[in-house]
């Protein structure tokens, strides 16, 4: 079967402890990024030299280099035109998605072909959101390496549960550019529940209310004895504290009047953020806005502020109530509700959430750090082993376009992942040799109201009368929430040729170019990863042969045994070197030499089964 991957397939190399760096958890946030590491189920947030855990997700592209975090934030005042913030909101977004925002976004968009990925224009540079995110991840990686004194090359990276496929793929690509192998993409609320559940030994049905800078997620989980089962999830991939800032900034700019350019918007937003933070603890804020040498004074009280942000908060409550109703869970019956995300510090948010569940929400783990802590715990679980089990779901339904622009759902939202569903298609006209399949994600009935993920062209369908071919298309969502599609014509066994055009992703050419340009991924580095992968496969092969010898060596003559031992030794010799081809050749040779041995073992197994014995009774 021909596999066609919308996403980079699991190209992740196979780690072997002595050749691998450390694995961390990274919360790649809209406003801030946090990195943490866990050892023996205790997670620690990694801080910079001055003790700060939060790495502002801000990047400044200066002529003399790239700045990330606090230095980039300072650049905002000097050279606002070079600074990018809140890039997460553009991950996996198309040009069409953001067209409505021209002039409002705090950065300039580069003109791009219709339907492609968004590109930012900063001076002479044109950047994709993937590249900007990669720069933030590189800074997080360096921070961890500086603090831990070791190479860090693997990570669990968190994404909003409500991130669609395009945004997840973009995140994965960004990590790859930054030289990080993604062990798993984990949903932010799930990571928070993991951190909370493991810390407090919580059991029962919990909700996670996650309001970050740019995304909102509400998830329901069942926690019991090390199992974290997501029951339902909902949210909005573009709703968060940024909206509060925008509302305040719009008011400030309106009070001022006059012409406003992109740099003014950035400064107004920065001032708005200060006002918001002040109004979280104070009843009134006063400040000035200095734009283009003209000063204006502003005053905002708590009541006015809450009036400005109330529509956004109400929307989060409506989404939360919807998830609870869909799952048939009474909000008052929850064992607890965990608050995640810096925006949950806003008093109005806490009041409204408390009113929803009829009690005070839980916030005893720092809402800014809890997601990174969960990601670090999962990174340790994946690399060192663990008894905890995370069972997550697809946040959005996956479907295909049918006649009349309607959507036929293939995989319903809130289905546990990994999941695979197959659908059969047939032709419309006699002799038809190709067909187009349009994959979309979303809950609406019409294609144009859902998000377009990809268009596939199935080609090479054998000529038959209309309706005769049986083309089986399989849609699979893996544990990272990423989609893969494969296709096969069933009646003739002919594999349909499929062409994938991700609607908002990077093309393979673009990805290859970026990888070439990135220092972390010079050609030698790719080769090294492939070598590591080949070695792990070869070691696993030797292990399997050794186990078989321990069980059934009596099936071999002394000469045959010696021959196998010699082949093992040759693989081991190759393993001590750095030649990938030599490793693969020696492993293939071992497999060939052991083939007659495997056949005799099968014969013995079949005879034993016929004699009515179970194989495990033979002490194998």
């Amino acid at each position, binding site marked *: 079967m021909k596999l066609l991957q919308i996403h980079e397939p699991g190209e992740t190399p196979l780690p072997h402890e002595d050749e691998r760096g450390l694995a961390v958890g990274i919360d790649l946030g809209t406003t801030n990024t946090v990195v943490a590491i866990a050892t023996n189920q205790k997670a620690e947030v990694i801080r910079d030299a001055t003790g700060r855990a939060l790495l502002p997700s801000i990047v400044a592209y200066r002529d003399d280099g790239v700045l990330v975090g606090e230095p980039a934030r300072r650049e905002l005042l000097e050279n606002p035109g070079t600074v990018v913030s809140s890039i997460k909101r553009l991950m996996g977004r198309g040009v069409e998605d953001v067209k409505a925002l021209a002039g409002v976004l705090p950065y300039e968009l580069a003109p791009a072909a219709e339907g492609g990925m968004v590109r930012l224009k900063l001076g002479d540079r044109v950047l994709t959101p993937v590249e900007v995110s990669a720069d933030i991840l590189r800074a997080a990686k360096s921070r961890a390496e500086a603090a831990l004194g070791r190479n860090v090359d693997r990570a669990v990276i968190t994404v909003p549960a409500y991130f669609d496929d395009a945004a997840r793929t973009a995140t994965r690509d960004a990590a790859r550019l930054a030289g990080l192998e993604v062990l798993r993409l984990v949903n932010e609320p799930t990571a928070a529940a993991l951190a909370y559940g493991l810390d407090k030994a919580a059991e029962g049905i919990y909700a996670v209310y996650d309001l970050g800078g740019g995304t909102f997620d509400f998830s329901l989980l069942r926690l019991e004895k090390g199992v974290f089962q997501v029951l339902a999830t909902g949210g909005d991939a573009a709703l968060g504290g*940024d909206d509060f800032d925008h509302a305040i900034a719009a008011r400030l700019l309106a009070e001022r009047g006059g012409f406003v350019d992109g740099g003014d918007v950035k400064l107004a937003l920065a001032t708005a953020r200060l006002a918001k933070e002040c109004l979280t603890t104070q009843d009134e804020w006063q400040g000035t806005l200095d734009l283009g040498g003209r000063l204006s004074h502003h005053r905002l009280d708590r009541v006015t502020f809450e009036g400005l942000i109330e529509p956004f908060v109400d929307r989060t409550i409506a989404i939360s109530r919807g*998830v609870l109703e869909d799952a048939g869970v009474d909000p008052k019956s929850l064992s607890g509700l965990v608050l995640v995300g810096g925006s949950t510090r806003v008093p109005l948010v806490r009041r409204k959430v408390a009113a929803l569940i009829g009690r005070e929400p839980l916030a005893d783990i720092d809402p800014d750090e809890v997601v990174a802590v969960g990601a670090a715990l999962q990174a340790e679980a994946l*690399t060192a082993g663990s008894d905890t089990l995370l069972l997550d779901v697809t946040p959005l339904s996956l479907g295909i376009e049918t006649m009349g622009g309607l959507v036929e759902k293939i995989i319903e939202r809130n289905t546990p992942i990994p999941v695979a569903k197959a659908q*059969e298609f047939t032709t419309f006209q006699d002799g038809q040799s190709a067909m187009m399949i349009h994959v979309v994600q979303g809950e609406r009935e019409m294609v144009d109201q859902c998000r377009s993920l990809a268009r596939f062209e199935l080609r090479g369908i054998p000529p038959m009368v209309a309706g005769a071919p049986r083309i089986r298309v399989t849609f699979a969502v893996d544990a990272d929430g990423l989609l893969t599609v494969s296709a096969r014509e069933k009646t003739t066994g002919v594999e349909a040729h499929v062409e994938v055009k991700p609607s908002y992703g990077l093309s393979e050419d673009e990805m290859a170019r970026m990888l070439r340009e990135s220092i972390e991924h010079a050609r030698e580095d790719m080769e090294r990863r492939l070598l590591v992968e080949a070695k792990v496969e070869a070691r696993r092969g030797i292990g399997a042969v050794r*186990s078989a010898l321990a069980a059934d060596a009596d099936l071999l003559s002394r000469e045959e045994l010696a021959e196998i031992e010699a082949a093992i030794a040759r693989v081991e010799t190759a393993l001590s070197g750095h030649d990938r081809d030599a490793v693969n050749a020696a492993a293939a040779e071992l497999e060939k030499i052991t083939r007659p041995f495997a056949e005799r*073992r099968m014969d013995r*197994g079949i005879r034993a089964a016929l004699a009515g014995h179970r194989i495990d009774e033979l002490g194998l």
Partner: protein
Amino acid sequence: MNETSRDMDTAKADGTTAPVACWLCRGPVAAGALFCPTCRAVQPPAPVDHFARFGLPVAFDLDENELDRRYFAVQRQLHPDRFATRTARERAVSQSQAVAVNEAYETLKDPLARAEYLLQLHGVATEACQTISDPELLMEQMERREALSEIDTREAAEAFLDAAGRDVAASLATIAVAFGRGDLTAARRETTRLKYLTKLVEEARARRARLGGRPEAPILKTMPR
């Protein structure tokens, strides 16, 4: 979607089947075993029915807590998270296992899906794409639909949902009795009814949502204005 029919073709639940070859060490593995007894490599999912996958008897009556317990126990062994650092092939096999386990769990957990699957196992077709052929059922559903279309307050929607919920519970009891007696005709008839009742509940929920002022489903908003 045709996995199930393919599963049933090759399903043999009578215990002593011939061993299959392990994909890694190529030695014998008992049919249905999750791991190779020799080299411990995870094995691809066995072609068995959803009940057999959890070692449960083929029956409509099912202890949901027991199903959960077995689902968690199996996923603890097979979930891709357990294989994150293993070879690419082992990761792929673990994913196919987890997919099969999730499909079985999703089918058995939902009583309507379970009833339809059981009928399928027994070779009885459900009225998936047909219109209602039972005049009595047709009349009942038309009346309910009309009642639903006249609802204009959230309270009325709540009351309608309560009544529909009671009907669903009663329908489930009827199905359980029919399967218990081995009366597949009655089971099929009531399963069709349950299907329409379930759809009615979904529509009533959507209506309640519209009346309650919340969006029908969380909708992706592009960006702030």
